[in-house]
């Protein structure tokens, strides 16, 4: 009899121990994420383990359903989701550029109220209003869309040094050609590359943000002498042999190997390109091994004749994660999505990104002593920049900058003149501006 009652008590205890915690436990919350992720990058494994897996360990009540895409596939999916009104809960975004419609159509929330007191951990500049006039995504970094990468050892071997003026750069062309080298490499088969990584810097130097804002307000034109002169300078670079038409036949990834193997002493790209040269923890290999990284430098393009902004580079606050505007304010889902966004821009993740990709943290409390020389160089590179100017695809809508993107390739190939490209851009702007005024 006693045995029977003990048995029943044990069963009861077992039932209570299983049922009660289950009923008291938080209901898991599912968060969908559209993530921009290059699975082939050297830091990919650390990203998976230290960012996504770690978040699921720390937040077992939040189930993250993540979709990883890269380059155009990502943008295509984003636009498709936006068009179908089916945006995921958390989405990787740019502060403008190809994410402009997410900002301007108000498809993502203003994160400033959610950030609250935590704003003190971020650099003030990164929390500035974005394309839609509000903080649509919490940026992880500051980004310079232009950097001149220099293979110093190669230059030294030819008895050359980093040019300080455009004329000095032009003077190097015959020497480099004699040695069978290219002058500047760019992976510009995709049409955004020249505009974003080179021409925006030229516009910053020769036109300036003030004039760009006048154009944006309809008070000045792309056909004004300043903007046309920027296009003309770009065309001149081909005539001077500084740029070669080959850049438009070079894939964005192919250029990494070409630069690392000394095909040219210079390469122009965004400062994010550094990540492609660092050590891959899974293989221990790097396109530029650590012991050779001191041979490379990052700087800005030399002084351009007639520039109004000296030592300037084009840049934007970087990418980050935004939250679907349809998530109910104050809901558990909003809290979970915000938890994820906070984590993705938290000190641990930013430290990891600093170490794996040399991403300059947007937080003030992130540092690391485990970084490769090229990452140190990327941080130092910002000392060379006296002024940061706008990136064209960040301030103008796609409809307006697309003729510039294509036009820059056409100028390089000799299919269009600078004035023709300026006129086409103005025409696209006028159509966009007229619609905006309605």
């Amino acid at each position, binding site marked *: 009899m006693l045995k029977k009652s003990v048995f029943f008590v044990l069963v009861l205890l077992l039932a209570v121990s299983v049922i009660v915690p289950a009923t008291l436990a938080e209901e898991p919350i599912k968060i969908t994420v559209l993530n921009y992720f290059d699975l082939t990058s050297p830091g990919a494994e650390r990203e998976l383990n230290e960012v996504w897996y770690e978040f699921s360990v720390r937040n077992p009540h939040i189930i993250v359903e993540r979709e990883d895409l890269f380059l155009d596939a990502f943008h295509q999916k984003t636009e498709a989701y936006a068009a179908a009104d089916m945006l995921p809960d958390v989405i990787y975004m740019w502060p403008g550029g190809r994410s402009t419609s997410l900002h301007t159509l108000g498809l993502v929330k203003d994160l400033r109220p959610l950030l609250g007191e935590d704003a003190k951990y971020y650099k003030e500049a990164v929390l500035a209003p974005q394309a839609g006039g509000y903080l649509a995504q919490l940026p992880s970094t500051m980004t310079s869309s232009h950097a001149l990468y220099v293979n110093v050892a190669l230059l030294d071997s030819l008895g050359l040094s980093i040019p300080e003026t455009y004329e000095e750069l032009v003077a190097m062309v015959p020497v480099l050609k004699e040695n069978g080298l290219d002058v500047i490499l760019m992976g510009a088969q995709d049409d955004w590359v020249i505009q974003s990584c080179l021409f925006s810097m030229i516009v910053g130097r020769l036109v300036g943000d003030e004039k760009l804002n006048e154009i944006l307000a309809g008070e000045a034109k792309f056909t004004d002498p300043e903007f046309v002169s920027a296009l003309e300078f770009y065309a001149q670079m081909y005539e001077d042999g500084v740029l070669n038409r080959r850049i438009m036949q070079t894939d964005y990834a192919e250029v990494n190997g070409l630069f690392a193997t000394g095909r040219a002493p210079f390469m122009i790209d965004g400062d994010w390109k550094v990540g492609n040269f660092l050590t891959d923890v899974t293989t221990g290999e790097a396109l530029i091994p650590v012991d050779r990284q001191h041979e490379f430098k990052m700087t800005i393009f030399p002084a351009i004749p007639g520039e109004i902004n000296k030592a300037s580079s084009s840049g934007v606050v970087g990418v980050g994660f935004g939250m679907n505007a349809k998530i109910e304010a104050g809901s558990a889902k909003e809290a979970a999505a915000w938890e994820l966004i906070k984590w993705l821009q938290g000190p641990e993740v930013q430290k990891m990104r600093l170490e794996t990709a040399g991403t300059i943290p947007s937080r003030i409390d992130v540092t690391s002593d485990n970084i490769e020389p090229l990452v140190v160089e990327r941080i130092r590179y910002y000392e060379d920049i006296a002024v940061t100017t706008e990136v064209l695809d960040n301030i103008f809508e796609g409809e307006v900058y697309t003729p510039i993107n294509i036009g820059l390739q056409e100028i390089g*190939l000799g299919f269009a003149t600078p004035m023709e490209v300026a006129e086409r851009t103005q025409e696209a702007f006028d159509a966009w501006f007229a619609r905006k005024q309605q």
Partner: protein
Amino acid sequence: MKRVIQWWTEERRAYLLLVLPAVAVYWAVMAFPTVFSFALSLTNYNGGPVFSNPNIKFVGFEHYLRMFRDQYFWISLKNNTLIILVSVFGQIPLGFLFAYVIHRKLVKFRGFFQTIIYLPCVISTIIVGRLWRSFFSPYGPFTEFMQKFQPGWENELFFDPKLAIVPVLFVILWMYTGTYMIIFLANLQKIDPALIEAARIDGATEWQVLTRIMLPSLSGVIVTASILAISGSLKSFDLLFAMTAGNPARRTSVLALYMYDTAFKHSPKYPLANAISVFMVMLSLVLILLVKLTEAKFGGRE
């Protein structure tokens, strides 16, 4: 009531049961999107809710006019036309020629040749595109190969607007000829060998066997292959996307890429993209109709 019962026969029920699922699926995934796309192309719809959206307005054929005024539309159409020509007058005759040579045992190692010619078809298009992109790169093997013969040769294949599409056409020819070879080979095997033998006994030459027996017997297959080639050429996207992405300066773009760029690149312009897709469907229908009319006029009987 009696008439209804008469109509609702077992045969008709069976017929509907068999046909309706396919019709429903066809309507849902083919016909409806096409009609819907046409409807949207006449509006200013550019994302967001489609139904009960007060901002959607009827704009007539505005987007079609815009499309016809865009120089990149004409570049894409020209490239598509070239791809269609290469497909219909390149892949199909070559595919037939290879099939004929193999079927008539005019070469040794037939299995080897059959495999080699068909091999590109089984490789992912994206991988093929990437491989050929590397091959034609200014720093790739093609450039090095040419420089062996002509030191200092500059690879400017993609820089001449007239020539930029040529490497792509070559890859398309290389990649898809095997498909048509297999189609022809399968159908050649259906021709009664006794017919050919009888013709040869009667003194027919190889050329006469080819033109009087083989080709007339295959006219239906040629039409089918042409339809496949035309529709496949009009929707060409993946290979070009991987190989050139339509660049430089959109000179290697095709209609599908032009539509993709319009719809998904930079700021989306869905109405214009819808207009482009409707144009592609219409063009496809017209070309297929032309092929059918040609077959009706000149084709033989299987």
